[in-house]
């Protein structure tokens, strides 16, 4: 816990806070920074499941997309309060996560991955084919949400600070979670589920709880997205997007929280820059993923193991 407040962390947060003031940060780079931090935060919340509990969710895009749609539906109907959007997103994503969590956490390993995938596809298909929500074009041309009164989050800079606050709060929440007793139980489940059960823990309840937390954090991130982009489309919850979230976690390093944040940001920046120059960007990403799985299953942070010989996993 103390590490979260170390001087390095302070420097990082300070740097992020003054980033928009730097001369080369154009509006475009601010939007890019928004994406980088947003997807970083989502990768971090997915890490709670994959890295700490050993549950690979292949359906996180649905939590993200549902959050985005929840907010978009309100914005479209003239409810422009950011708080209303967030609250609605929590409700919608929470309900959905309850259902998914209930059925998926009953199964382990690959079954969990596939069940989350199928549930997410249901959501995707529903939004893609439902004209009330714009069908495959989604909901477009949304007004910016308002923080209080007439203060609209309508510039890239305001959006950036909003996502920075979100990332900060989410990070603190995850940190607290994994260092708590709850977090230790999650790791115990990952290491040996049966043993955790014999020790008297209600494993499924723990799994459901962490599923809910991860889904809600992701959904909140999704709810911020229409404010930046002015739209929500079904493509946001395509199953390949869930795959990209997993790639972000893998690049950053499982079970490290900070790693996936960096992994997510890295993924967004790489995609933006590389895809402007070459169109075989996905080969690069695919090869990076294969390389990491084969040689660095602990992610880029695993390098430390080679260098310093310290234990790689934050065992909470």
């Amino acid at each position, binding site marked *: 816990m103390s590490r979260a407040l170390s001087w390095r962390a302070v420097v990082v947060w300070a740097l992020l806070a003054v980033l928009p003031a730097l001369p080369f940060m154009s509006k475009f780079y601010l939007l890019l920074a928004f994406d980088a931090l947003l997807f970083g935060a989502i990768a971090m919340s997915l890490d709670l499941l994959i890295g700490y509990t050993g549950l*690979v969710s292949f359906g996180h895009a649905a939590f993200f997309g549902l959050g985005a749609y929840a907010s978009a539906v309100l914005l479209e109907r003239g409810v422009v309060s950011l708080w209303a959007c967030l609250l609605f997103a929590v409700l919608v994503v929470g309900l959905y996560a309850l259902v998914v969590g209930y059925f998926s956490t009953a199964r382990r390993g690959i079954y969990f991955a596939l069940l989350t995938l199928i549930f997410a596809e249901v959501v995707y298909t529903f939004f893609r084919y439902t004209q009330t929500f714009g069908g495959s074009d989604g909901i477009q041309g949304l007004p910016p949400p308002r923080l209080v009164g007439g203060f609209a989050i309508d510039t890239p800079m305001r959006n950036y600070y909003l996502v920075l606050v979100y990332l900060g709060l989410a990070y603190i929440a995850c940190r607290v979670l994994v260092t708590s007793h709850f977090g230790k139980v999650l790791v115990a489940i990952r290491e040996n589920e049966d043993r955790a059960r014999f020790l008297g823990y209600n494993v499924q309840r723990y799994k459901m709880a962490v599923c809910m937390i991860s889904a809600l954090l992701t959904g909140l991130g999704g709810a911020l997205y229409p404010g930046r982009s002015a739209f929500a489309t079904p493509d946001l919850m395509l199953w390949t997007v869930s795959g990209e979230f997993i790639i972000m976690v893998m690049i950053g390093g499982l079970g490290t929280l900070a790693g996936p944040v960096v992994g997510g940001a890295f993924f967004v920046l790489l995609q933006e820059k590389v895809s402007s120059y070459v169109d075989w960007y996905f080969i690069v*990403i695919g090869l990076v993923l294969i390389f990491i799985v084969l040689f660095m299953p602990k992610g880029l942070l695993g390098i430390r193991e080679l260098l310093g010989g310290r234990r790689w996993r934050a065992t909470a």
Partner: protein
Amino acid sequence: MDYVVAILLPQLLHGLVFGAALGLLALGLTVIFGLLGVMNFAHGELYMLGAYAGIAVVGVTHSFWAALVVAPIAVGAIGAVTEVATLRPLYRREPLYGLILTFGLALVFREGARQIWGGDMRRILPPFTGSTPLLGMTYPNYRLFLLVASSLLLLAIWLFFTKTRAGVLVRAAVQDAEMLDGLGVNVPRVFTLTFAGSAALAALAGLLLAPIFTVYPQMGVEMILLAFIVVILGGMGSMGGSVAAAFVIGLAQSLLTLWMNPQRVAIAIFAIMIVVLIVRPRGFFGREGVLE
């Protein structure tokens, strides 16, 4: 009666045709799952590569039949190399790494195909055109051929697994690879050959469906999801279950369009699947607790 002949029968046939082809795709997937514990995300891309390999062969030989032989062999070889190079090192690790790895493989194959053959849609002409008057309607000959060919293939595969030593070995490996190892069987080789066979089956399905569905790099992405559903429904690792589930999905898809907008059918299929999973979590013929 008019309704039955003009509407019901054609839809029934559509369903059978599609179900048979889907069965070919799902069969390879379920065998690999039973054997390696890996849900192969790249299976859809092998299906896609089969179609492209077919186009390449047709370009040289001008024969669809030659392509039907060469393309699966070529893709099977790609499968074997992939298995040895990337999946084999992962056998001792959690199966989830395999899942993530194959997602990466899928990206590479898909984008690679786009670089080599371009992203635009290609067509393969069916080896014969025309249609047959059948019970008062006309049905394209190629679709009838597809139904017959897929069914024969499924039968041949069933015979392979029940009547030949190699087939029995694979089935034994699916049940218990360690015991097989103890009996002195070269298990890694069984794995590699099975993976190659599964890749060849996917390629065959891709090529057989290509004259109807056309060919483009993304073609595997949507099919793979359907194949996943089939495999889960049938009971993961169960071959008979997969084939049965493929026909169920194929028939459900085409018959449901009679009563609802075809777009709603996609959701209905998912609903069927979720209900099955709740009522019978291991699918039609799945064993309890495979790889849980």
